[in-house]
């Protein structure tokens, strides 16, 4: 199988383009994770389940005859409030506690969401058909669904809007201040509780956008959340917190890696290779840092 990739360069081109378009989506989810990790110091295992929930919102619009692309507008609005609700109920009690506590608590939320979605939407693999058709490149050797191009475009648009919002708006400034030093921000009159809630809401909204796009381009299933969490975690640790170009680049890199793993190893090992890559990256960084007698913090 592996020589196929080299004998037919078109497959390589196809895999690369697919991977990049997919990676932009991953980068969007990872951006949300980097945001809340940086601001609240929480690793949200339920990230992937928020994505899937966003996807189901778009899917339901599709079922009721509305074009699923509108989900890109509707899903983040709903997800913002879902995020605020999760924050108020659970996250605000674990913000300043041990990180393991927050991991376990969000793991609980993840299981809860998985099962609730399973009840509400059924255990079928679904997708919202956008009817966008496909684009052929290189004498129709490379096939790109327009929905993928659309989703990559929308992701970049949302990410750009958010970056500008974080730079210019008052809330954005408050969020950045809290990320730098929560205590100092509090002294200077920033309501950190509100900032945390808003951050978690924005993160959930980003997940909603990504989910809606995923339901258009790929498929969604209630139990497919965890791989998205792991992917975004991986992207963030490779890029580092607060390194936006890094997040975009490593997101695309991960997308390309996955497409090649899919071609070379076979689809059944796709998710497994993502998780193994995570382990390898962590181990690599651990060895690199241990030479300086440091460890990942």
């Amino acid at each position: 199988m592996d020589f196929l990739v080299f004998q037919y360069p078109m497959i390589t081109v196809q895999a690369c383009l697919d991977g990049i378009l997919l990676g932009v989506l991953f980068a969007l989810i990872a951006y949300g994770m980097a945001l809340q990790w940086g601001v609240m110091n929480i690793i949200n295992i339920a990230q992937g389940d928020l994505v899937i929930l966003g996807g189901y919102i778009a899917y339901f619009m599709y079922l009721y005859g509305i074009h699923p692309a509108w989900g890109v507008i509707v899903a983040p609005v709903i997800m913002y409030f879902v995020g605020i609700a999760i924050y108020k109920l659970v996250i605000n009690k674990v913000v300043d506690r041990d990180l393991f506590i927050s991991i376990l608590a969000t793991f609980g939320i993840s299981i809860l969401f998985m099962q609730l979605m399973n009840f509400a939407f059924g255990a079928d693999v679904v997708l919202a058909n956008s009817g966008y058709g496909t684009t052929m490149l290189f004498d129709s050797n490379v096939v790109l669904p327009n929905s993928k191009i659309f989703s990559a475009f929308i992701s970049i648009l949302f990410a750009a809007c958010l970056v500008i919002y974080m730079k210019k708006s008052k809330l954005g400034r408050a969020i950045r201040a809290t990320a730098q030093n929560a205590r100092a921000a509090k002294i200077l009159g920033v309501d950190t509780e509100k900032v945390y809630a808003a951050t978690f809401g924005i993160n959930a909204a980003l997940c909603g956008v990504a989910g809606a796009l995923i339901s258009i381009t790929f498929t969604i299933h209630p139990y497919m959340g965890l791989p998205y969490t792991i992917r975004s975690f991986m992207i963030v640790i490779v890029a580092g917190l607060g390194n936006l170009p890094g997040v975009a680049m490593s997101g695309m890199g991960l997308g390309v890696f996955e497409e090649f793993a899919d071609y070379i190893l076979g689809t059944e090992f796709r998710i497994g290779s993502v998780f193994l890559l995570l382990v390898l990256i962590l181990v690599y960084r651990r060895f690199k840092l241990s030479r300086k007698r440091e460890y990942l913090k």
Partner: protein
Amino acid sequence: MNKNNLILYSGILIFGLAAPFLFPAFKVQLSILCVLIVLATTWNIQGGEMGYNSFGNILFYGLGMYLCASVQVGMFFPLAEWTESGGEKTFVHTPTQFFQGMAVGLIVAAVVPTIVAGLIGYSILGLRGHYFAICTLGLGVAAGEISGGIEIIGAGQGFTTPPFPDVGSLEARGEFFYFLSFFTLILTFIAVRSIYSTRFKLILNAIRDNEDKAEAMGIETMKYKIIGWMISAFFCGLAGGIMGGLVGYIDSTDVAFDGREMGVFMVLMAILGGKGTLWGPIIGATIFHIFKEGFWTFFLGWQYVALGVLIVVIVIYFPEGIMGWLREKYPERFGEVVDEKDRKAQVELK
């Protein structure tokens, strides 16, 4: 060992030996309870005592499960044909073959995960805190996904473990597995108890409290971390092997490498009972198992919802666990010397 302890232990031993005859309908449940206690207690060695919270002990559990069943089949029949036929009637283990296979299988199931833990330990245990947690989570899920793609152990369609041979009594299967898991539990308890009374436990606690300082004191932390993880892996593999035979069917992601269920259960049970205590995981596992079975029986379908809520509630409102709560309430019983003035001052502060 003082008099009270002797009475307690012999009471538990007698109850354990008599239980399958007193409650014949609950034999399987009691066996699962024994396995759960083994898992929680050994998770506690590196999760509670060493402070390395792992979601990945499920790796050793699943590995042990697959290894035990594969050895048990592979010793007498071609493994590939067995998994292909789903363990149909063409291959039947005689009682001797079954028990021989089980014995060798359990030894392999315990030893190989221990070696694996030793091999990967140096790389993985260099990570700390949440990186370790996420890395082990990834390890467990990756193992499940990959074993789901390997043909010879049944890939996605699963692996039927050898059915219990006909030895003339219908009750034999339940009793066999009950006593197997009960004796594993006793073995684990004795092992863990003797570990906890040595310097080794103090070293683990030192690593938990401040690893850098422990290293500065001249303790080779990495060595002890790996040994701690290997002990965990040994018993996890053993428990997995038994559980595989008990369930009778192995699926890569739903039974063996079931990070969503068993992988979280062992963490949850240890936390519920109280991390870093000898009895905490045992109490936690018992309460959790009773709760779980009740819920699984009466609210079928809602069990994962309940599980999710339970995790959140325990983690947020009860992170110290039952033993931690008792310790705060009755510190004298735990051998802590309390100054009466100190306590009064604390009450006033509250």
